[in-house]
């Protein structure tokens, strides 16, 4: 589904990713683990097109999207939930969901939003509130729901549990597991929460200094010595 081949990327003249290689198969969930500043967020931004590829190739399906603009990647089926959620603060929760809808000539906006709302009953009570007035957990759920309104084939999730209360983390995890199992949604998840990434991922990539340096099974995440320096202590 996704092939990332020897990708170099960075901000201006500052390189961050150097020679990234990995693939994601259909219906697969791939976790990405690494310390802060190792390039996890830049990797997802590069995949969605917010950071330019300086060399290498990104193929999504049969298409080379290395130099494709961000909105075309989203329309091709890449969904992105960024770190910090990036909720539109002056739009209501409902309008945020509508922003996520991508016209394809088949689905209607109303049906897509209703379909997503059915999965996220927590949003019912806050649907008319402004995005900026929601709690961090509510925003995270809204960001995920908004992304799903676009019917992505591959979901890019950047630190979905950051600053979120445990009950909502569990709720998000249940939803993602459900989407993966029942709809076969492929996911790349960048996360520091070991339990979250272990329960969700099929395999976990280790990233260090902008390069994929290894791969471990989710089960191995229980053994901290196996991870070496890839996660923060404690």
């Amino acid at each position, binding site marked *: 589904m996704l092939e990332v081949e020897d990708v170099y990327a960075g901000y201006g003249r500052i390189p961050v990713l150097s020679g990234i290689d990995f693939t994601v198969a259909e219906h697969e969930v791939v976790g990405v683990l690494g310390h802060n500043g190792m390039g996890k967020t830049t990797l997802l931004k590069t995949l969605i097109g917010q950071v330019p590829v300086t060399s290498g190739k990104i193929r999504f399906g049969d298409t080379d999207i290395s130099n494709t603009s961000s*909105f075309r990647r989203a329309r091709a089926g890449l969904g992105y939930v960024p770190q910090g959620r990036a909720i539109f603060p002056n739009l209501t929760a409902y309008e945020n969901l509508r922003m996520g809808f991508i016209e394809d000539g088949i689905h209607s906006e109303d049906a897509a939003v209703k379909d997503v709302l059915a999965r996220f009953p927590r949003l019912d009570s806050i649907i008319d509130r402004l995005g900026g007035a929601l709690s961090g957990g509510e925003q995270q759920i809204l960001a995920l729901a908004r*992304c799903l309104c676009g019917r992505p084939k591959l979901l890019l999730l950047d630190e979905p549990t950051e600053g979120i209360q445990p009950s909502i983390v569990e709720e998000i995890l249940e939803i993602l597991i459900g989407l993966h199992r029942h709809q076969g949604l492929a996911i790349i998840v960048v996360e520091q929460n070991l339990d979250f990434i272990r329960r969700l991922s099929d395999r976990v990539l280790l990233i260090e200094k902008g390069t994929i340096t290894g791969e471990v099974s989710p089960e191995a995440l229980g053994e901290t010595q196996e991870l070496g320096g890839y996660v923060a202590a404690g």
Partner: protein
Amino acid sequence: MDLAVVVGIDFIYAVATLALISIGLAIVFGMMRIINLAHGEFMVMGSYSAAVAVHHHVNIWIAILIVPPVVVAAIGAIIERVIIRRLYGRMVETMLATWGLSLFVVGILTMVFGDITEGVPTPIGGITIGSYQASGYSLFVIAMSIVTIAGVYLVLRTSRLGLLARGTMQNAEMAAALGVDTSRIYAVTFAFGAALAGLAGGILAPVSGVFPNIGGSYIGRAFITVIGGGPAALVGTISASTLFGVINQLATFASNPVYGEVALLAAAIILIRLLPQGITGRYFRGSL
């Protein structure tokens, strides 16, 4: 009683005029954060397109209501593509570029039409209120101001394009990651703001006269209104227009129009001193 009605019309006309000349800038500056110093010249181009249409025997209503927004929207779309698109997020460069653009437009208009006042006939005559006369066209301007603001509200609040524009102006990078063609949205929004400026120029052409430098008399009041109104483009424009329009007319009635303008400027300074974020930065927060 009749006098009160006539005076009331004058007050509402002052508010309506201020709202009309500011609404396009509220979109371009208030929403898009583009300091368009050529806003006055966009209005002048609207006025000239109305004048030219009238001279070519186009129906007067089409000449002042349809031709100006269409012509200025097209010019705005070209300007966005050629100049503004390269300057998003660069406020100083945008100011310089649009200032240069305003001088260019004034120069071109002077070269083509000469430094004389073109006339556009007033399509509505005076109306009698008791023993007083009032301008029927003032009532039309008031009505058009209300219709324009209501139209902008409907476009922004109920249409998908309006939603995408509001979202894109809040976070363009995220909007693009959700599949929104933000370049197109920026272009359409800028053209929409230009069309509103053109419409205002067309509507005001019969009462203001049309000459190349008249944009200078619009731009200051438009910026004062939009900045005084604060972050909410529509509610800010309405509230600031009402405040400044009433103050302007009170001072005008008490003395003369010059003091009216001075009072408007003084009110703007006091307002920005008391409410640096504008009226909607403190009140009506989160409104459109």
